[in-house]
């Protein structure tokens, strides 16, 4: 691995996340994949080790790092289990809008418990009829006195049901289209807020994905994040900040699969020798390793750019997510290939990496949508 010149603190984060992965996550990853049980015991370990606060300011109980620190931890966890890792990093996705648009009061109210890992957060944008096209949102928030009343359904929400704090996009003015969306914090337990069934998924099965149902759910007006009408832009800014994290998840998955493939290729004997002695296998491994390193470099660079407070980071974070997830899909498929028939069996670790990798090309905007963002960015740039 390239030396990315981590600070001592960043090394500590990576080492601790690695220790948790090796000692706590790897031994239970297959079990959670099978049972789909939410990994509360691991969440507790991460919380006790202060890892939920790496990206949160010190005055809110965090460690004062940023997106890059979150990426370091997410990458390590994802080597062991991407499903468990996303339970961790989706909490950050839910917290980012509060960090970006919350008032001091809102930050004081929510961030400390998120930083301590006492409460998980989640982010709810997607609806059955509004996926890639986020402007087609149906969920409404109508102001009534000192409350907003929410109605509608969000689906495919990571940490849905298990999180306590939800940042939700709803339409405060449908006539204004995308400019009529607003962002709210809704706490679990609010009357009128309930959960649908848990989805049965191809991968990241340790994580929970549920429907959020709002049925005349009254939310105090203090829970509005930012201003009315800012919801859509807020969602885009949130994704600019969160996409390097999906990239980091993809890098972790790919690295995990590569490590297993190297190990297996040395053990497996055919034609009286280890399959690692075949050039055909070595070249595959070489390509895999090169692509993983390239995606890591891109993910780290874009995370550092976000943390440096640069404007217009959207294109680069889209690139990081796009490239790392495509690499993860390719590398994990190749890892299964190197394992041969054993790779297809659940008894071996390769197939889970491949199943887990797929989601990184889909959520937080499909890779087609990332290409749209990058393409549009190029065109805008050249018009200047």
């Amino acid at each position: 691995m390239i030396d990315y010149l981590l600070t001592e603190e960043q090394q500590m984060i990576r080492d601790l996340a690695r220790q948790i992965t090796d000692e706590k996550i790897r031994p239970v990853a297959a079990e959670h994949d099978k049972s789909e049980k939410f990994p509360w015991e691991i969440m507790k370990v991460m919380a006790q080790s202060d890892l939920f606060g790496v990206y949160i300011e010190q005055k809110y109980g965090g460690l004062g790092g940023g997106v890059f620190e979150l990426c370091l931890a997410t990458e390590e966890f994802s080597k062991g289990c991407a499903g468990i890792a996303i339970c961790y990093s989706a909490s950050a996705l839910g917290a980012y809008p509060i960090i970006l648009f919350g008032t001091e009061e809102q930050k004081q109210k929510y961030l400390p418990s998120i930083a301590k890992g006492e409460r998980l957060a989640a982010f709810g944008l997607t609806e059955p009829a509004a996926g890639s096209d986020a402007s087609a949102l149906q969920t409404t928030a109508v102001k009534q006195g000192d409350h907003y009343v929410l109605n509608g359904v969000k689906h495919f929400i990571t940490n849905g049901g298990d999180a306590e704090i939800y940042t939700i996009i709803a339409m405060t003015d449908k006539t204004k289209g995308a400019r009529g969306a607003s962002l709210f914090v809704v706490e679990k337990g609010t009357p009128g807020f309930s959960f649908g069934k848990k989805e049965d998924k191809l991968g990241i099965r340790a994580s929970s994905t549920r429907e959020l149902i709002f049925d005349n759910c009254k939310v105090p007006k203090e829970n509005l994040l930012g201003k009315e009408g800012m919801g859509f832009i807020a969602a885009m800014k949130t994704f600019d900040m969160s996409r390097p994290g999906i990239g980091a998840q993809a890098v972790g998955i790919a690295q995990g699969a590569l490590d297993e493939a190297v190990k297996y290729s040395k053990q497996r004997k055919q034609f009286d020798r280890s399959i690692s002695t075949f050039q055909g296998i070595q070249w595959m491994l070489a390509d895999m390793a090169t692509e993983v390193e390239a995606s890591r470099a891109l993910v780290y660079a874009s995370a550092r750019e976000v943390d440096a407070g640069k404007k217009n980071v959207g294109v680069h974070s889209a690139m990081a997510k796009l490239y790392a997830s495509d690499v993860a899909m390719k590398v994990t498929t190749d890892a299964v290939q190197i394992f041969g028939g054993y790779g297809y069996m659940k008894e071996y670790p390769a197939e889970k990496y491949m199943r887990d990798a797929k989601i990184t090309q889909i959520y937080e905007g499909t890779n087609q949508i990332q290409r749209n963002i990058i393409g549009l960015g190029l065109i805008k740039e050249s018009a200047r």
Partner: protein
Amino acid sequence: MNVIVCIKQVPDTTEVRIDPVTKNLVREGVKSIINPFDAYAIEEGVRLKEKFGGKVTAVTMGPPQAEMVLREAISLGCDDAILVSDRAFAGSDTLATGYTLSKAVAKIKDYDLIICGKQAIDGDTAQVGPGVAAMLDIPQITYVRKINDVKDGEITAERSTEEGYEVVQTKLPCLITVVKEINTPRLPSLKGKMKAKSAVIQAWKAVDIEAEPDRIGLKGSPTEVWKIFTPPARAQGQIFQGEAQASVDQLVDSLKGLLY
């Protein structure tokens, strides 16, 4: 509630080699860790602090490098750490180690409970904890698997025995030694690691703890190791199966065969 945990730095392997000539443990070139049982002692101390307040002080007697395990103890939640280190302690056996630690504890003074591991994975004697308690003349509960209650200056704990467990109640201050069943040690925290990095570890020499020169190190260690061997494996037993009366007869016959 103030707790002192005694931790020992040990080689990271259960396969400790013994020098055939000197009969001493070979420590060179082996990575050092906190004695695994002492990790349970630290965790229990930190849990008591979280429940009752107060602080946890980790103490080790060892060479200067043993400072490393003290820093680790801080990353796991201990507040203070004391390294008891002096050339004069070299060659200490369990008696001298117990004495030295008891003098260090006496200097710390303000404590309610001392927690030791059940035994060290290298020396394996399980004598140090009881030795410290005896020299401080305080009660002890060994092989504790659960602390049931601490209140009104008393502690109630379950101690493991081969047949089951005993519930023991005694006055504080006291010393307990703990077994693995007592808890699951946590991993370090980031804040703990950062604190550990910058922590100032106090170092105490023999004079600082007012140790009598004749009772420490080689001089204070009457133990002589004569021989170290692996006891022969127990022979396979024999099982008599089948109808009760017939197998009892078979058993009696074979026992008779052993006698005559």
